């Protein structure tokens, strides 16, 4: 083979699926963490909930579009094959997407729900029984927390799954390690966090609060550090592994993907945002004051994290397919 058969559609899908998982995870975390019985970071939680369903839906659409026979995608759902990560994954995606939708619904205010109803053409709207319309006004805020709790494992699963999809392929030594799944998970969470940083910074109606930024920064710094702790062992481990894996690593250690991997992923995607965020965080760390919020730096860092997440998937999808046993 050696010519890649999974290309940008799959890269995008892996990225978008991860992004949704990240958005949901952070949002759910923000919901779960409480202060005086209320979500500690409601704006983060709400934005996360509003955004989470869309990337994964788009990603799933791309995934179907990438099929040789897109109109046969339903065949995925008449079978369940526990040995096939893709079979597991497609069920997982459906459940996760439905859950994010429900979660989003729960985060909408009743007026917003009614407003949404008004977008429907009059003809359709008139057919909806009044009882159902009335139901829109129910307070669902209680369900937010329940759904967040239920969604944690699903979000983590989706994050991991995108990595497992690749990692479970023993034919591609570049992928065939559990570190890939973990890297994809933490990268997913990190891109979710970064997206929320961006969103909060651009939310002019409810300007971002210091506590929120601190929460997001803390989270992101942790995630990036974890990613480092995964990537470095991945490389060291690979170099110490069997020949096929060593050969596969040549893709990023002196091969076609070296530049992309080191400069764009490790450098721009992890190290630079980490340094920026640490720098912003420095006063807190040194106990000399408050977190410094520079919109420009924060935007840069978040943007780079998202870019890094994308590049990670790009490198893995293409380098992995180019690796093999010969």
């Amino acid at each position, binding site marked *: 083979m*050696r010519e890649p058969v*999974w290309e940008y559609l799959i890269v995008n899908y892996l990225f978008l699926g991860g992004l949704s998982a990240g958005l949901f995870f952070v949002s759910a975390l923000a919901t779960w963490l409480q202060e005086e019985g209320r979500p500690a970071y409601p704006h983060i939680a709400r934005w996360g909930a509003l955004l989470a369903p869309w990337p994964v839906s788009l990603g799933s659409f791309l995934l179907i579009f990438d099929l*040789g026979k897109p109109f046969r995608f339903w065949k995925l759902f008449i079978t369940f094959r526990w040995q096939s990560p*893709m*079979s597991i994954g497609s069920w997982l995606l459906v459940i996760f997407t439905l859950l994010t939708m429900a979660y989003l619904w729960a985060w909408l205010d009743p007026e917003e729900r009614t407003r949404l109803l008004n977008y429907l053409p009059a003809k359709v709207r008139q057919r909806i029984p009044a009882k159902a319309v009335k139901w829109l006004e129910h307070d669902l805020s209680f369900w937010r927390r329940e759904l967040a709790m239920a969604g944690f494992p699903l979000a983590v699963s989706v994050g991991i799954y995108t990595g497992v999809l690749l990692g479970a*392929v*023993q034919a591609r030594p570049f992928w065939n390690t559990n570190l890939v799944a973990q890297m994809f998970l933490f990268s997913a969470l990190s891109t979710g966090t970064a997206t929320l940083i961006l969103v909060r910074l651009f939310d002019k109606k409810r300007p971002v609060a210091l506590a929120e930024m601190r929460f997001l920064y803390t989270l992101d710094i942790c995630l990036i550090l974890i990613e480092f702790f995964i990537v470095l062992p991945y490389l060291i481990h690979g170099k110490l592994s*069997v020949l096929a894996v060593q050969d596969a690593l040549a893709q990023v250690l002196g091969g076609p993907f070296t530049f992309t991997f080191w400069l764009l992923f490790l450098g721009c995607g992890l190290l630079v945002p980490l340094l920026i965020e640490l720098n912003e965080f420095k006063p807190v760390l040194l106990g000399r004051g408050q977190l410094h919020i520079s919109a420009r730096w924060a935007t840069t860092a978040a943007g780079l994290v998202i870019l890094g997440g994308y590049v990670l998937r790009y490198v893995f999808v293409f380098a992995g397919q180019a690796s*093999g046993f*010969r």
Partner: protein
Amino acid sequence: MAKKPTKRYAMVLDSRKCIDCKACIVACKAENDVPLGVFRNRINVEKAGDYPKLRMSFDPEQCHHCENPSCVRVCPTGASYQREDGIVLVKYDDCIGCKYCIIACPYDARYHNPETHTVGKCTFCSHRVDRGELPACVETCPSKVRVFGDLNDPKSELHQLLASRRHQVMNPQTGNGPQLYYLL
């Protein structure tokens, strides 16, 4: 009551006899209507040395019809399956074209059919085998590199070759249990 022993189809290849003439490749294309640009079998060429001390060797390869086929394992719809006699096939009607199996094959034996948009692969010419003929590549081979047969039949030429000649499989570390045996 003794159970009728099942067949286990496999292939023995004597690569030293391969002259890279491509007869197997073209015969396969004709027999199986394989579109242009994709192949069910191939001949790997290895070159070494500097003028005038040169070496060149050829290894024909196709689906190894593995004992534990990773392609079958990853298939999300069950389109990829293995027959009782070991032949790994694709049910074209069930294939959604996700290409996961292509990636999952350590021997790069599968391809995406640009005409049907499903995945194609060597079938050991199961339709010929089922009517008692040899796979097209085996039959057509000018230098008779390939011997096809039933591993479980002690009388088969294949069985006897494996019993009497040193041989190896390609990349056994894949864990797939490949069933193309290369004579040494």
